[in-house]
Each structure stands twice: as structure tokens, then as C-alpha cells.
């Protein structure tokens, strides 16, 4: 008997039908992810990465196939698969604290006391170094800070799988590097299972245990999966000159720009 994977994507197809026209976006996605693994998904724009992440989150229904978490099929969204959305998606009418607290109350309303929930909210805000801004509203903090709060909200749910959709896409390089370090540290401390979509090759190599490379759509599938054999904890500067790092980086670049060049839609 083979060891069962923690999270399994089982022959997933996805097509959208609009106005009688059907467009096939994903075809035959097959992937197994272990507990505590950090997996990045990389691919050209429009190939269906967000669609795949939304399927795992349960926000988008599959056309064929199934998502299995601990051997159980999941087809509805839930806090066991917390999502950090690309555009942070904080509720603007709530403060930073209230945004996280809403999630905490919802997930631990029965199991934790009020005092514990308060403490847990603050703990998660501190984890992303946002405790100082807890009474600010999203409109009053920077993009990087919003993304931190989004991560804190997701972490506070103690999800089985943490789903990140281009979490640092809209940030400048410095803030980005800073947040990447935070995520690496949190992953090292908590050992979450993480799936992250990214456009950034360096980000993928630095953070991931494995990199899933998707072919171009329509009917995109997994073109190749690359294991990153770098020791953890990884240091940004040391890794940059590590031969294994450079080799991985080259492999991903080769995949993206040679074997599956981005073709403009005709």
C-alpha cells in the first residue's frame, strides 16, 4: 500500500460555459501534496492558476475530478483552506483587529473563550508584525501592511492548507523580500501546508519545496514539477549564489521561456 497524500488533486478538469460557448481552462490536473509542504504554482498569465487555487479553496466547482484533503472530498469553501487573496480582500469597514477577529470568532467561537480569542487575534497580528496598527482601517495602511493582515487573518484560522494567490504581486521589491522572509519564518515555525501562486521565479525557488509549472492554456495542465533541494532555513543572499538554487532557477526559466513560451492569443 502506498502512503496516502495529504492533499490530492485527482484528474481535475475545468471548463467555463458562457453564452453557449464552452472554454476549457484546466485539463487533467493531477497532483499530490504532503503535509507541511510548500508548493508554488508558476505559469504564464491566464493559464488558469487562480482557477486552480479557487478550486482547491472550494470557491469554484470542478467540472470533472475531485480535490481530496485527508482522503475526504472537499467541494465547498471552508476555513480549513484559508485563502490570502491577491488584492488582500480586507473588509474596509472593519479595523485591522476586527478583520482578524471576525475570522477568529467564526472558527473558534465554540472552542475558545472570549479572552482566548482576543489573545489569539493579537498573537496572529504580532506574528506578521502588525500589532501596532490594530485599530487602523485598511484604507489607512500601506499595501504591504494590508497583505500582512490578510496573512494574519488566514493564519488565525489555523488552516490545514494555506492558499496564497500572488500574495506579493502588487508590492515593491523591498517589501516583497521582507514579506517573503516573514512567510518563510512562519512556515518554519508552524509547519503549514502552503500552496502559493507566483509569477516570480526567484520567489518560487526561494520559498518552495516543489515548483509546479503549468503549460499555457487553453486546457492547461501540469507541465513539470521541480523539487528544490535547498536546505532550510534558507537565507536570501546565501541561496542566491548556491549552485542548486541557480540550477532550479534556470530550469524554471527554461520551462517558461523555451518550452512553453507565452503565445499571444490570436
Amino acid at each position, binding site marked *: 500500500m502506498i502512503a496516502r497524500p495529504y492533499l490530492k488533486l485527482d484528474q481535475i478538469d475545468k471548463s467555463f460555459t458562457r453564452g453557449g460557448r464552452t472554454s476549457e481552462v484546466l485539463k487533467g490536473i493531477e497532483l499530490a501534496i504532503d503535509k507541511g509542504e510548500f508548493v508554488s504554482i508558476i505559469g504564464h498569465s491566464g493559464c488558469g492558476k487562480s482557477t486552480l487555487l479557487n478550486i482547491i479553496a472550494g470557491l469554484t466547482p470542478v467540472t470533472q475530478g475531485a480535490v481530496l484533503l485527508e482522503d475526504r472530498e472537499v467541494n465547498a469553501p471552508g476555513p480549513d483552506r484559508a485563502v490570502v487573496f491577491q488584492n488582500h480582500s480586507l473588509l474596509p469597514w472593519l479595523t485591522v483587529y476586527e478583520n482578524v477577529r471576525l475570522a477568529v470568532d467564526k472558527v473558534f467561537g465554540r472552542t475558545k473563550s472570549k479572552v482566548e480569542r482576543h489573545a489569539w487575534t493579537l498573537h496572529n497580528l504580532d506574528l506578521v508584525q502588525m500589532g501596532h496598527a490594530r485599530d487602523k*482601517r485598511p*484604507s489607512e495602511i500601506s499595501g504591504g501592511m494590508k497583505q500582512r493582515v490578510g496573512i494574519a487573518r488566514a493564519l488565525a484560522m489555523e488552516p490545514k492548507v494555506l492558499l496564497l494567490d500572488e500574495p506579493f504581486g502588487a508590492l515593491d521589491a523591498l517589501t516583497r523580500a521582507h514579506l517573503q522572509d516573514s512567510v518563510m519564518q512562519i512556515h518554519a515555525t508552524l509547519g503549514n501546508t502552503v500552496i502559493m501562486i507566483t509569477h516570480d521565479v526567484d520567489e518560487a525557488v526561494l520559498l518552495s519545496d516543489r515548483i509546479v509549472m503549468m503549460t499555457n492554456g487553453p486546457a492547461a495542465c501540469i507541465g513539470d514539477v521541480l523539487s528544490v533541494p535547498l536546505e532550510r532555513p534558507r537565507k536570501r543572499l546565501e541561496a542566491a549564489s548556491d549552485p542548486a538554487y541557480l540550477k532550479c532557477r534556470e530550469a524554471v526559466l527554461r520551462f517558461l521561456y523555451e518550452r512553453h513560451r507565452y503565445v499571444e492569443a490570436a
Partner: protein
Amino acid sequence: MSQPALKTKADAVVAAFPSPKSATVLPLSPSEPARAGRLLAKAGGRARQVAVNVLPPLVTLALILLVWQMLTAKAGATLPSPTTIWAESKDLITQPFFNFGPQDIGLGWRVMVSLQRVAIGFGIAAIVGVLVGAVIGQSVWAMRGLDPVFQVLRTVPPLAWLPLSLAAFRDANPSAIFVIFITSVWPIIINTAVGIRNIPQDYRNVAAVLRLNSLEFFWRIMIPSAAPYIFTGLRIGVGLSWLAIVAAEMLTGGVGIGFFIWDAWNSSKLPDIVVALLYIGVVGFVLDRIVALIGRVATRGTATA
């Protein structure tokens, strides 16, 4: 009507009372910019700000009163002049809250009675409107099916509802309240529905991941997210309520401000009517501002997403 009597009275008053308002307000305007300029040097732009905001309306008001006085002071004028109104209805203007028996009360009291009806009718309209709008906004098919109906009903003037309302309730007070309700509920429903439809998919996704139930979704996501739209609807609705109450009270009687106008017309007290119009205008303006203010406070976060 008793026009000769009005005319003679008007002439007499003009002679004794040479347009007080225009005399005091107009000379102020040339000197004010100079004064504001001097203050500007010392206290910054604050005084100027006040002057800029307060002066134009005062000047306009003075001009209106002046033109009005000139048009109606002539012999044979059918409407009362400002000075006539001041002379005949001074007590109504200066004492809003006198009480000399069941039908002889100050306009402040009458406005209160009308406001009470508006509060009930508009309150029900607000609750029903937001709930119905929320349900309709959630469903594409309900929106498609009901929107044309609402768009038609929305244009029915308040008074057109009154006969049906009287037939249904057989009593003046509930009929008036119903007319307010039915007049003001449509913009609330329509705007709420549009607001609900415009809830960003992101917020829906957040709610889905958190597994908010429908009640939590309603209070934590729908209402705050659609609040700017809802308050637009409420603001239109409160204006329509106030339009409707005056019209409805003219026909149903009672002690409201609307009936007062009807009563004044029947006893040929045109100056009283003008004073009542001012009350109605001011109260309508204040109502609109109150709803707008509540809206601004309540949507603090949402507008600057």
C-alpha cells in the same frame, strides 16, 4: 377670495414697514470681503471660509425678498408680500410652540405631528425596503422580474395611492402612513438591490471561506458593503416621504402641517400658508441633511476602500 382686504392691508404695512431685511443685509456685502481679507492675514482662511459659505445665501435671500416685495407690494397683487406676512403671521414665525387649544397650536407642534407620521411610515419603508432590496439583489431572476414593476410603481405620485389606501384602511391616520410608506419604499428597494449586486466578489469569497451564515453575511458583509447605496435610497426616500405627508394630510385632516395649509387656504390666510411652506422647506432640508450625515458616519470605511 377676499382680495380687496388683502390689498389694503398690504399697502398699509408697506408704508409703515419699509422692507427691513433688504435694508440691513445688502449694505453688509461690500464691506465683508475687505474684512475677510484683513482677518485672512491674521487667522488664516477660516473667516474667509465662513464668509464664502454664509454670504452668498444671505445675499440671495435678500435679493429674493426684495424682488418679492417689489412684485407684491403693488395694488392688485394676488399674493402677500414679505412685509404682509411678517405683520399677519408674526406669531407663527416667532412662536413655533404655542398651544391655545386643539386646533390652535404652533407650527412647531404641527410639524412634530407630521414628523411622527413620517417617522412611522418611513421607518417601515426603510426596514422593508432594505430587506426586500437585499433579497432581490441576491437573485438575478428576482431582479429581472421585479425591477420593471418597481420602476413603474416608483413613478406613481403619492396622492394617487390615497384613495386605495383610504379604501383599505378606512381611517385617515393609517392611510397617510401607508401613503408615505408606499411612496418612499421604491427608491430604497431599488438602491439596496443595486448595492447588494455590486458587493465585490472578494467580499463574497471571504464570507464563503469563513462560512458566514446568511444572518452573519447580511449584517457583516451585505449591509456595510451596500451602505453607500442604501443611504442614497434612504435619502431619496425621506425626501419623498416629506412630499407625501403634506399632500396626504391635506386630504386626510388632523393637526399636521399639511392640513394646516388646507385649513389656511379655506379661511383665506395666505400669509399663514407662506409661513407653513417655509417650515416645510426647512424641515425637509434638515431631514435630508440628517440622513446624509448618518450615511456619512455609517459609511466612513466603505467609501475609502
